[in-house]
């Protein structure tokens, strides 16, 4: 059987004012259905670019990307994205933000009441039933990010793409949302690709960690399978030697094999 997401020899070249810049080269990755993949690497290594290729927000200049054996051409709601800075529309309430997505995906076949029920369910899933009528400006950063997740999940995507979704949050909120995300993903059996620069987050959440080399012409340096049993508990893992072994493998890759050159710092 073919993999769900297939990335074959993908490359990305940007035409900048200073000339051609090769961001990604020779990316080969297969993601199985229901798998949680973390993309990790130093900033500027093109991990977000790779995610945007899967999202269809960028078109690969080389190679091909497939989802369920169909070529990815342009963005679409079956590959919903949770953006780093939540990207909620500030003039719409939490409910309206999610409803906009729900209406687009299911609007043709379902009644208004069904669409509203979907929206309410998605907000309930992320624990925001009390804040549905609030504008993004009236809720905290963590809540905004949860609305963003609710919006992405409500579309029932084939692949959920997350671009450093918790990067802008404080540590406690981040931990809380990570735990919630694990529960939601377990319940919905979503296929997830998540960009992160947080080693603990990558080990805690994912089935495989894709470690990327530094750019330009960044590519996949190594892939680490995280064979920790689920459900995972962050407190129990804190004393798990296997967890620490995995963690040090990622750290070793990032800080010893892919140390950023000094001039970049």
């Amino acid at each position, binding site marked *: 059987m073919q993999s769900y997401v297939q990335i074959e020899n993908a490359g990305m070249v940007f035409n900048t004012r200073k000339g051609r810049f090769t961001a990604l080269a020779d990316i080969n990755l297969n993601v199985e259905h229901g798998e949680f993949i973390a993309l990790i690497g130093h900033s500027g290594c093109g991990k977000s670019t790779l995610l945007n290729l899967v999202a269809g927000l960028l078109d690969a200049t080389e190679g091909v990307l497939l989802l369920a054996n169909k070529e990815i051409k342009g963005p679409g*709601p079956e590959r919903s*994205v949770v*953006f780093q800075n939540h990207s909620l529309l500030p*003039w719409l309430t939490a409910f309206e933000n999610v409803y906009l997505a729900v209406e687009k995906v299911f609007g043709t076949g379902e009644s208004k009441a069904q669409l509203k029920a979907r929206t309410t369910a998605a907000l309930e899933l992320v624990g925001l039933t009390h804040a549905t009528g609030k504008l993004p400006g009236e809720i905290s950063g963590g809540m905004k990010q949860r609305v963003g997740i609710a919006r992405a999940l409500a579309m029932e995507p084939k692949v959920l793409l997350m671009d450093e979704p918790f990067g802008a949050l404080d540590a406690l909120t981040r931990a809380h949302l990570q735990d919630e995300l694990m529960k939601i993903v377990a319940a919905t059996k979503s296929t997830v690709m998540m960009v992160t620069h947080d080693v603990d987050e990558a080990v805690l959440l994912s089935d495989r960690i894709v470690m990327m080399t530094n750019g330009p012409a960044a590519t996949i340096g190594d892939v680490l399978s995280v064979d920790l049993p689920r459900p995972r508990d962050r407190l129990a893992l804190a004393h798990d030697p296997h967890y620490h072994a995995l963690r040090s493998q990622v750290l070793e890759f990032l800080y010893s094999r892919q140390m950023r050159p000094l001039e970049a710092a």
Partner: protein
Amino acid sequence: MSAVNATTENLNDILSGEDIAPTPQVSTAAAPARRTPYFETESGKRLVENTLTLFRNAIPPLLGMLLFIGLWGLISHSVKNIPGPAETWHSAVELFSDPFYNNGPNDQGIGWNILNSLYRVGIGFGLAAAVGIPLGFMVGRFDFLNRMLSPIISILRPVSPLAWLPIGLLVLQKAEPASIWVIFISSIWPMVLNTAAGVQRIPQDYMNVARVLNLSEFKVFTKILFPAVLPYVLTGVRLSIGVAWLVIVAAEMLTGGVGIGFWVWDEWNNLNVAHIIIAIFVVGIVGLLLEQGLMLLAKRFSYE
């Protein structure tokens, strides 16, 4: 005394049911304690606080006004023909006591003059908004159009509004549409430029959301483009109405007819300086009101 009160109130209580029940409770509770001075109670403290803030906020502007009037009085004493504040005030009271008289085209009340000027500004500015805002959207959305029009806009924008008047008179043949044309051409630029800037500054994230959701062009416009650009549009509108009101006085001085600008010129010919000073205040106050009104509107529509 309190005993008597209590009995009558109890009686009332019994007679009229529970409606007035809270009143006796309050009075009996307050009766035994020392009567707190009003300024020590919560509401009293708040009143003092509010009065103080009111004074703090009111004193600087009042002082400024007094200084201005004092300076004006001083000047009117030393310069011949400039009427002082008191004289102007009397003249204004007289003028505004009958603002809507009509003794033919060259002698109408101040109210008519203001309304006529507002009408011209409204038409000219309305046309400018109807053309300028959509044009701004297109200039912001399509880079080609932007690069095509920006040299023309850059050249035309700094042109003094009145330089357009002869062209208007030549083409439109009449004074009235010519002055509207001047308002139109001078107030269109802030709306075009601000709307275009607003469209260009829409965060890429919002457009990415639109792309991921695959929203239709209509939804993109109503749910993202329009609300995101609205604050910029309103800034443009506010600047434009300021310009339009600025220009109308000068345009009417040249074109004549009923209007505050022509009225100023007319009073200058009559050597009625008090009326000219009144006109200056009227123009200033109406302009302020227009701008404040739009500020309120802008606040209503700003989402951050």
